[in-house]
């Protein structure tokens, strides 16, 4: 395919085999096969390269989760049985992220049990830990940090949350930690600390107005809950930001490889390009692009127009309906392939040096280890 050939070929095996690579992060828009790609790479790292691998999935399809032995959401890595690691000596573990539980663990680590119980009971904490739009991203990063700190694995493969935007994976943790450490919380806290009168009179003036509005709009009970939440979180100031920054540094390190996952669709390719430029800005190591679901005609020499014309000739002639249908199907496929190349070229033109691999669309969906193995082989072109 010209679009993929223009870019250097991505050699996934080289990455998976490299002992210096300890983390592979798969990012991209929703619906491009990110989870399947992450699972397939992790399986390949274990089976082919003998690495003790763990894959952190966020929201796997039910049957894929089952095939990896992930029948419950318990936030601990489980070893995947029944894979072919006899010769390689590798291992595959898999886990599904439990967002709320991960958040609870962070709280427990940073405060005493009494305070923690207070925080857990607060309605604001409950709302934030289960529904805040950035919590999933933050917790995915937090979990990655934890797995990395334990040092038990040769390789951690991370699937990223199906966010509004792939960039949320990088942005949301900082936003959340800024918030949890932030000046608003400190302002809310200030009166409580000095017996109702803040020492910062400037702040108090504006804050008085803020709290009046909040009280009007949301009611007084809410303010009580809010200041309770803030007071309980007080002991944790600093902790959130520090952790997010630590993980951020791991992502910038040489041991990390970012793989963009996309499909040859305009939205997915645009998203991949946004992400690629952000990684460059953040000095994070973009290793390559995995372009999934690419349609590739088996007979590339026969173009769409000739194929359709030939089908029409056969229909006129009569007696070759079956062959005419095959030619029409080929014409549709060839046309789709050309369009996909044009879409993919938008990325390659903007990032000509990013190694790329195209993975042919599978006729059926993947939901078992055999299927993952096939995908892994397709990604590594072996």
């Amino acid at each position, binding site marked *: 395919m010209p679009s993929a050939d223009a870019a250097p070929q991505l050699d996934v095996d080289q990455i998976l085999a490299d002992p210096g690579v300890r983390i592979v992060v798969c990012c991209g828009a*929703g619906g491009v096969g990110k989870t399947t790609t992450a699972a397939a790479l992790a399986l390949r790292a274990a089976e082919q390269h003998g690495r003790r691998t763990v894959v952190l999935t966020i929201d796997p*399809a039910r049957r894929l989760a089952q095939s990896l032995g992930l029948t419950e959401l318990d936030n601990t890595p489980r070893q995947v049985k029944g894979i072919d690691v006899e010769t390689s000596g590798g291992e595959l573990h898999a886990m599904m992220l439990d967002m709320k539980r991960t958040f609870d663990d962070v709280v427990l680590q940073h405060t005493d049990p009494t305070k923690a119980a207070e925080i857990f009971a607060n309605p604001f904490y409950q709302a934030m830990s289960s529904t805040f739009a950035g919590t999933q991203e933050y917790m995915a990063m937090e979990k990655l940090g934890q797995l990395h700190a334990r040092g038990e694995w040769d390789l951690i493969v991370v699937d990223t949350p199906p966010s509004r935007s792939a960039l949320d994976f990088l942005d949301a943790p900082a936003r959340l930690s800024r918030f949890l450490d932030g000046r608003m919380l400190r302002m809310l806290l200030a009166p409580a600390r000095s017996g109702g009168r803040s020492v910062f009179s400037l702040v108090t003036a504006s804050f008085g107005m803020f709290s009046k509005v909040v009280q009007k709009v949301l009611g007084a009970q809410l303010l009580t809950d809010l200041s309770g939440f803030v007071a309980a979180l007080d002991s944790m100031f600093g902790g959130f930001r520090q952790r997010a920054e630590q993980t951020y540094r791991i992502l910038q390190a040489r041991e990390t490889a970012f793989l963009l996952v996309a499909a040859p669709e305009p939205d997915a390719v645009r998203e991949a390009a946004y992400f690629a430029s952000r990684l460059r800005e953040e000095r994070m190591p973009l290793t390559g692009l995995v372009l999934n679901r690419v349609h590739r005609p088996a007979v590339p020499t026969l173009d769409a127009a000739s194929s359709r014309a030939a089908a029409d000739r056969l229909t006129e002639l009569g007696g070759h309906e079956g062959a005419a249908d*095959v030619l029409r199907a080929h014409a549709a496929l060839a046309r789709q392939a050309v369009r996909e190349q044009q879409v993919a070229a938008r990325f390659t033109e903007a990032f000509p040096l990013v190694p790329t691999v195209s993975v042919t669309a599978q006729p059926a969906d993947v*939901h078992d280890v055999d299927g993952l193995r096939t995908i892994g082989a397709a990604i590594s072109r072996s």
Partner: protein
Amino acid sequence: MRAAEQPADPAGTAWPARLHVVTGKGGTGKTSVAAALALALAAGGRRTLLIEVEGRQGIAQLFGIDPLPYEERHLTDAPDGGEVRALAVDAEEALLEYLDMFYRLGAAGRALRKFGAIDFATTIAPGLRDVLLTGKAKEATTRTVDQRRVYDAVVLDAPPTGRIGRFLNVTAETARLAKVGPIKTQSEGVAALLRSPITAVHVVTLLEEMPVQETVDAIADLTSFGFPVGRIIVNGTRPPLPAGRVVSAAELRRGLLAAGLPADRETVAGLHTEAHDQVIRRELEDSLRADLVELGLPMTELPLLPDGVDRAGLATLADALRRAD
């Protein structure tokens, strides 16, 4: 309801609601379908509003225009003098607008924003953000000028299936936090509209396993929360295969020769494999379609657009939606 005073619905009874919430798994073409529906419902001199709420500027990208502001703008004309307007709702702006409406904040509102109070408020109470977004959709749906509705229909390009239940279930989310006050009143009003026959939630899917699974899950969720589910919209479908089976290699070879094409072994085998893969794919699609039919909801199929969703493509989709029965 004063529907009797409105112009006749050109789409007949297929789209009885006035607020159309469009969801679907990421990658299923939810935004394109929402835009096409707004276009379809604007036919015959009607006016519709297409709303996006996730700050993605998907509408602007689809139509190749500059990013949309938080302001209702003319987007495109529809056949027979209709008009589609578009609005990108921003939660912060919506909150300020809302506060202004009730409390006449003026400069104080701007100060709140400068201090990050708005960001703070919508962060600490995620349900608040959703109430503001759905609240804006409600306001547009029910707005009247001189006792006439401003919009004949409002189409909301909503969050994807994974988040749709929570997004619409605003009362449950805010009730945990706000026990009294205008936010509670507001969310109750929104909830009542979202559960009334004025609203229909449509789920966009592809004939692929994950999107179909998410469609089934989302419909179960929506139903249990009491939201009226409208249609399942199957995007990117292909016409059925004419013959039920693939020709033999020998037949194919004779055909290629008759058409004057190369008929070497490689070509014949290649084309034969393509046709075979396609049959497997279609069989899978048929079984997924059967799963969807089993849900017992009205279903509309939209054709795969070989050249992607350009303006002509949108018109094709709108046409198919208009003809839905």
